[in-house]
């Protein structure tokens, strides 16, 4: 299979990223490397329901992209990173706005990666890139499968070098067509994809 980034015909409309244990450190290396005009990035990181909202404080000063916590109905725009708020699922509406939900937790988590990935795959189809990072959960595997099934690109942090390999390993097993990449390669791939779109 020709890597999508090399085929030169794909337009990346959005990137979804899911992480759990250990992923804040990974995002700290990944997100500052994304240029200001990058397609919208939507992120679910597993956090406890009562976690204070610190995403903007942690990432905004270090990222060329705008960093915010997703609000209900907010339009999803190029150049922005949207974090799912604690205790809410984050979904994508067909008119490309953020949707939030307080449906029951999935894989013991709200927000859940599967919920974001599945709804984003419905909307963006082949224009979506899904990324599963380190974590001690099965969340994200089904969602990444949906991303791939809809024609999108499935990227997985290499379980061999991930801080906790359970989650990327589950994603590798669920998505045979997914591409396993080291952290450095992951960043390079994302930037390359974006430079073509």
């Amino acid at each position: 299979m020709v890597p999508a980034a090399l085929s030169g015909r794909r337009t990346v409309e959005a990137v979804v990223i899911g992480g759990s244990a250990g992923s804040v450190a990974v995002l700290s290396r990944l997100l500052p490397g994304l240029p200001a005009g990058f397609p919208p990035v939507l992120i679910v990181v597993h956090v406890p329901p009562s976690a204070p909202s610190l995403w903007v404080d942690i990432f905004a000063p270090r990222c060329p992209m705008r960093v915010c916590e997703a609000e209900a109905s907010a339009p999803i725009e190029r150049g922005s990173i949207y974090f799912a708020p604690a205790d809410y699922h984050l979904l994508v509406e067909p008119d490309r706005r953020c949707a939030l939900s307080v449906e029951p937790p999935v894989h013991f988590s709200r927000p859940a990666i599967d919920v974001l990935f599945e709804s984003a795959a419905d909307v963006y189809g082949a224009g979506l890139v899904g990324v599963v990072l380190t974590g001690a959960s099965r969340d994200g595997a089904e969602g990444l499968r949906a991303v791939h099934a809809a024609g999108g690109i499935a990227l997985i942090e290499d379980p061999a070098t991930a801080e906790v390999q359970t989650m990327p390993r589950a994603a590798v097993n669920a998505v045979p067509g997914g591409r396993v990449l080291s952290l450095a390669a992951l960043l390079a791939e994302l930037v390359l994809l974006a430079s073509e779109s």
Partner: protein
Amino acid sequence: MDSAEAIEMRLLLDAVYHRYQYDFRQYSPASVRRRLTLALRALGCTTFSALQDRVLHDPSTFPILLRYLTVQVSDLFRDPRYFRALRERVIPVLRTYPSVKIWIAGCSTGEEVYSFAILLREEGLLDKTILYATDINAEALQAAEAGIYALKRMKLFTANHQASGAPCSLSSYYRAGYGSAMFDRTLRKNVVFSDHSLATDTVFGEMQVVSCRNVLIYFEHALQDRAVGLFRDSLCVRGFLGLGAKETLRFSGREADFEVLAPEERWYRRR
């Protein structure tokens, strides 16, 4: 061009509306699609068309589908800062009224209702207040009226209640037994539980406070505007509107009708 699935989904919601008068046609597609997909799997159907066939011809299917479409999870004193702001910013104004009416819109299984009732009792206002607790799901309203919750949830509820600035322990408001916590029935003495739809029903009284949290997040724009319009028309001048922690009037067409009282806690006042 719409996918076959998108068309089927629209037809299913049309069928539900015309057969059962529940209107989900202007609910947010992302969330409705997810919930219908879960219902589809649970009911063993393969397509939304098959589900539509069952919903129309088998009367026992609709209550199950409704449960999926209205699934809502809340806690007592969810987002304690919201209730702290209610205590500190709203209650002092309510004290100046001879009587108070409060509308809890989309009360689901009642967690919000008991939170308000407890807080009003603590502030000495419960006896002069009438609370209207409304929802579209009759099963949920019955649960709300019963006021019984799993005992294992009390740890979180108690912590939330404390964080809201409570003067005493939550345990003084319920009796525990058989794994359940049953809330003091006198808390709901002035509560009117009623079936009401923000999509199809209208204003039913003049309120000093409307609280509607994590309900608008499931609505499309037009329906959000309808609901917020109902709240505005229900509220007295300078009445209070409280929303969910991640909800905002900023993207609605009705922002100008309200001023922001507590931006972080999502309390607004009618202009």
